[in-house]
């Protein structure tokens, strides 16, 4: 199918699933039925053309599958006359367009809450979100995560079983629970984005699709909850980070650090959108961790040259972020900003507590940053030994190569 058709299916997937799951109250079975309907559409539409009302077509097919499924379930349980759902097959599009749109929005959000259910592990939640809300096929998701399709199918199927067992009804969570679930949704989208952005090995093209998909989903959530600062912050963070993607790796997938990137290759449009979004959000009150990270990304993106970076502002933002979250990576970045403003000794001092933090002690990033500080301080020998230690600990080939080259560069300088 051409890309327009694929996009249409992806956009319609959550809407159709919403209608079917609400009608039958069974998320897991509805998800199966919708997948079958999507597969049927991918087969038939290119040949026969896209139907006049593609959404109604998909709902109709999915509901028919659902009815078949219920009928065979019932037959298995008791061999009596089937009385279920004969009439449920007929589906009419809602007459009031406004009402329908509102229902649709609620459905998409509800699906996200379902997929990011607390009973699920993060990998399961990610896979299910991409399939149920993102409309990706199991094969596409498996390719993106570089695992066999059967493995991914199992993961998705287990995820649906967990939701079924949890007995949570298909309806909007209320109050406090809703806040918590939204946090989980944002975290899942953040992880999907990172999975696509952070990896430059493997079949890189497919991986980059994950970042694009995460942005698409974050946009959808932002449309549903335009007044939520953290949703806007996450979307801005993704846009401002993704804007640098092309400049981030060389022709062989080798890493190019921020200060060596060709800034002409940054995506200006994404930066403009991200900066506008975060500026508007920051002026509206309560500030969260995603908004701060987006603000930091914006400061980097707005510097025409690496030397123009407003490090004092970045340092202040990391200071706020550090107070808000207990994350050793934030401490690490805070130390980097501090070294850029006050010199490498200040950075090294801030790294010290991390040696006692089991979450990051011995992590290659800690060695790499120390190497960088010693290099700034002109201590080539210490810098080299830390770069080597980092190279031995990273499990990313481009990262290892980058660190080995950094170390060998210092050897040349001696």
């Amino acid at each position: 199918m051409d890309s327009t058709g694929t996009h249409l299916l992806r956009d319609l997937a959550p809407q159709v699933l919403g209608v079917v799951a609400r009608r039958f109250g069974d998320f897991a079975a509805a998800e199966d039925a919708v997948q079958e309907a999507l597969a049927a559409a991918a087969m038939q539409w290119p040949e026969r053309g896209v139907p006049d009302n593609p959404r109604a077509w998909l709902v109709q097919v999915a509901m028919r599958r659902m009815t078949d499924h219920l009928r065979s379930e019932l037959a298995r349980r008791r061999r009596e006359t089937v009385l279920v759902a004969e009439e449920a097959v007929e589906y009419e599009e809602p007459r009031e367009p406004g009402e329908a749109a509102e229902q649709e929005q609620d459905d998409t959000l509800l699906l996200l809450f379902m997929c990011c259910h607390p009973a699920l592990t993060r990998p399961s939640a990610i896979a299910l979100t991409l399939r149920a809300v993102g409309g990706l096929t199991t094969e596409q998701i498996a390719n993106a995560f570089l695992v066999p399709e059967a493995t991914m199918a199992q993961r998705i199927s287990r995820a649906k079983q967990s939701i079924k067992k949890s007995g949570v009804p298909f309806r909007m969570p209320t109050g406090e629970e809703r806040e918590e679930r939204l946090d989980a949704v944002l975290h899942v989208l953040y992880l999907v984005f990172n999975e696509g952005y952070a990896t430059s090995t493997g079949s890189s093209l497919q991986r980059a699709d994950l970042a694009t998909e995460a942005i698409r989903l974050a946009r959808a959530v932002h449309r549903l909850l335009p007044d939520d600062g953290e949703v806007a912050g996450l979307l801005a963070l993704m846009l401002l980070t993704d804007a640098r993607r092309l400049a981030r790796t060389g022709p062989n997938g080798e890493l190019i650090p921020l200060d060596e990137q060709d800034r002409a290759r940054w995506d200006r449009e994404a930066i403009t959108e991200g900066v506008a979004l975060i500026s508007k959000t920051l002026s509206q009150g309560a500030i969260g961790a995603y908004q701060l990270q987006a603000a930091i990304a914006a400061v980097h993106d707005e510097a025409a040259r690496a030397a123009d970076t407003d490090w004092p502002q970045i340092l202040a933002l990391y200071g706020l972020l550090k107070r808000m979250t207990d994350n050793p990576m934030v401490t690490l970045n805070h130390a980097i900003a501090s070294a850029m403003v006050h010199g490498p000794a200040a950075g090294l001092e801030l790294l010290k507590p991390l040696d006692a933090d089991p979450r990051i002690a011995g992590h290659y990033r800690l060695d790499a940053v120390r190497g960088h500080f010693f290099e700034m301080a002109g201590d080539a020998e210490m810098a080299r030994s830390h770069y080597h230690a980092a190279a031995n600990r990273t499990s990313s080939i481009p990262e290892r190569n980058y660190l080995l080259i950094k170390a060998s560069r210092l050897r040349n300088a001696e």
Partner: protein
Amino acid sequence: MKFILMMHAPRGTGDWDIMTKWSQGEVEAHIQYLNDINADLRKAGELVNIEGLMPPKHARIVRAGKGGAPDVTDGPFAESKEFLAGWWIVDVATPERAYAIAGRASAAPGPGGKPLNMAIEVREVMSAPPVEV
């Protein structure tokens, strides 16, 4: 025919220490050489899978202990002089082609641009059951 080409590197201290003594140009030339091989194999449609492994210091040996619980010890064995650094799986027409690729990989340059002549173990990958006639 599928072959696995296993690159063995000197064990050393169990880290990437062979490359740590090279100059920048030597490290870059080595990486570029291997990247070129990978790009050529991809273009020829011969590359099935390629993976690099973390250095052997991080390896663990696992055996089933009492009651089937995994018993984990440091590995690999200290007496081995070389370790598996990574592999390619290639799909090629003849064993000779697999040997040729392995030969090229073995000649990856080291210090002074001289070929390292690393040992590359070539093994045919066993296939699924034959098709019923």
